[in-house]
């Protein structure tokens, strides 16, 4: 596309060289200072006192426990949001019904809510001043300041991540193929597996990666609901905060470096998936 415009317009669309180089320079400077340098800082700070200190911080019991809890919460967030995303996308794109627009808006709502407020609403729903608190206590269910609360808050902040990727793809796909399959007698799940899913495969994977990324990194909401019990309700980002606030900078950055590596992995996975999806 761009080669056509460039050859037909020549100097006109390119503008002067000075403008071009200064804009590229400005962009590279911005990306380096604002995005790359912070990453480098995490790594250099983490290894400031050598590899031994680094590996001790990473292999610390509390760190391992935090990693496991983070993985657990992320797993549940991805699982629930997968079920939700597939159902919501199917319902919203294959059928026409009243209130569809409102439903779509409600699904997108959580991303506009501040993480702190996201934590707060679960505190109000399940915490001590809630009307259902005594019921939960009788049933011996702990949600606030416990793992279920962390899982719920994580699901909330990543709520639309999968459905948001699926809906536009399914919308552009239309319903003709599913209708044909249904008329020929295919059952619901068969239609989904054989007809629909191949179309949304890459979009779905993309959504899962985004959801997992956000779930692993969530800080504010989890911070409110977790109660900061070390070794019990401490996720990886919360562990970073505790270490940092205790002036244990090297361990804090060492733990942070795990999250940096995950972030880079996610970015790479993202662009691979995007690339494959586009080729299709």
């Amino acid at each position, binding site marked *: 596309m761009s080669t056509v415009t460039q050859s037909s317009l020549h100097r006109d669309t390119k503008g002067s060289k000075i403008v071009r180089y200064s804009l590229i320079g400005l962009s590279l400077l911005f990306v380096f200072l604002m995005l790359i340098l912070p990453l480098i800082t995490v790594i250099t700070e983490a290894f400031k006192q050598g590899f031994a200190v680094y590996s001790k911080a990473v292999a610390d019991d509390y760190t391992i426990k935090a990693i496991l809890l983070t993985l657990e919460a992320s797993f549940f967030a991805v699982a629930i949001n997968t079920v939700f995303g597939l159902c919501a996308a199917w319902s919203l794109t294959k059928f026409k019904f009243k209130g569809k627009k409102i439903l779509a808006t409600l699904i997108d709502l959580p991303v*506009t809510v501040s993480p702190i407020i996201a934590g707060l609403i679960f505190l109000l729903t399940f915490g001590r001043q809630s009307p259902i608190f005594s019921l939960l206590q009788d049933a011996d269910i702990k949600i606030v300041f416990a793992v279920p609360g962390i899982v719920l808050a994580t699901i909330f902040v990543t709520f639309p991540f999968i459905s948001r990727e699926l809906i536009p793809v399914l919308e552009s796909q239309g319903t003709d193929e599913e209708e044909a399959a*249904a008329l020929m007698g295919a059952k619901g799940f068969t239609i989904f597996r054989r007809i629909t899913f191949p179309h949304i495969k890459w979009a779905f994977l993309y959504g899962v990666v985004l959801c997992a*990324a956000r779930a692993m990194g969530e800080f504010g909401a989890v911070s409110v609901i977790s109660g900061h019990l070390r070794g019990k309700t401490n996720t990886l980002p919360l562990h*970073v905060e505790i270490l940092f606030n205790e002036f244990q900078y090297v361990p804090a950055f060492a733990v942070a470096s795990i999250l940096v590596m995950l972030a880079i992995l996610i970015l790479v996975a993202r662009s691979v998936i995007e690339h494959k999806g586009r080729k299709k």
Partner: protein
Amino acid sequence: MKRKSVVIPGFGLTTGVTLAILSVVVLIPLASLVVFSAQMSASEIIDVITRPRVLSSFKVSFLTAFVASLINAVMGVVLAWVLVRYTFPLKRIVDGTIELPFALPTAVAGIALTALTADTGLVGGFFANFGIKIAFTRIGITVALVFIGIPFVVRAVQPVLEKLDPAYEEAAGVLGASRTRIFWKVILPELIPAIFTGFGLAFGRCLGEYGSVVFIAGNMPFETEIAPLIIMSELQEYDYSSATTIALVMLVASFVTLFLVNVVQNRNAKILKGGS
């Protein structure tokens, strides 16, 4: 039309599951916020939000989010422009790196930017020579918010710029307009809705941002204390009604922002569809 849709199975099941999960995860918790604040009297609410410390936290939050989003609006357009119109080495890496703020946990971004901009840090040390402090000031908060908000603007502007019909620019060029004039008169007006959308999304996100700001801000009352932090400290003192009141104000602010963005986005969608 209606009969055609009914052919596909699974309406009851999928809509049911959707509504059930939506209720448990989003609707009931959000409703509990409304229920809880309905128990408070109006004077109580006004009392909380007119506390000087709370008012100044609103001011800090809105001011820093606004300035950061403004910077992002400009830098976002520059980055989108460079990524769409020019070829240069490392372009793909730059394009991928734009997404970093989405992938990097906010707390990690927070401590990294703090270490970088403190007086002992690489960038902070440089600016300290000129007597400028970044970390633990409002400038620091703004820096963190620029980090958080940049992908929103770039990703809003980029697709519009890609789909912009070159014929208009060509016509303007043939008619003798300079490149600068073409940019201001032909290209920018087409980008304005996208820039506004990106600005709005970044602003909304920045208003509620906590993780990256809490480390770099220093959290001095009246100076660098943001509204989400006040909510957090009220919660730590178990003052749920104050926390809820402040949260309600922030929630209304972000919903209004989202509403404005949606209005503009509808217009933007038309351009995207018509421009190809």
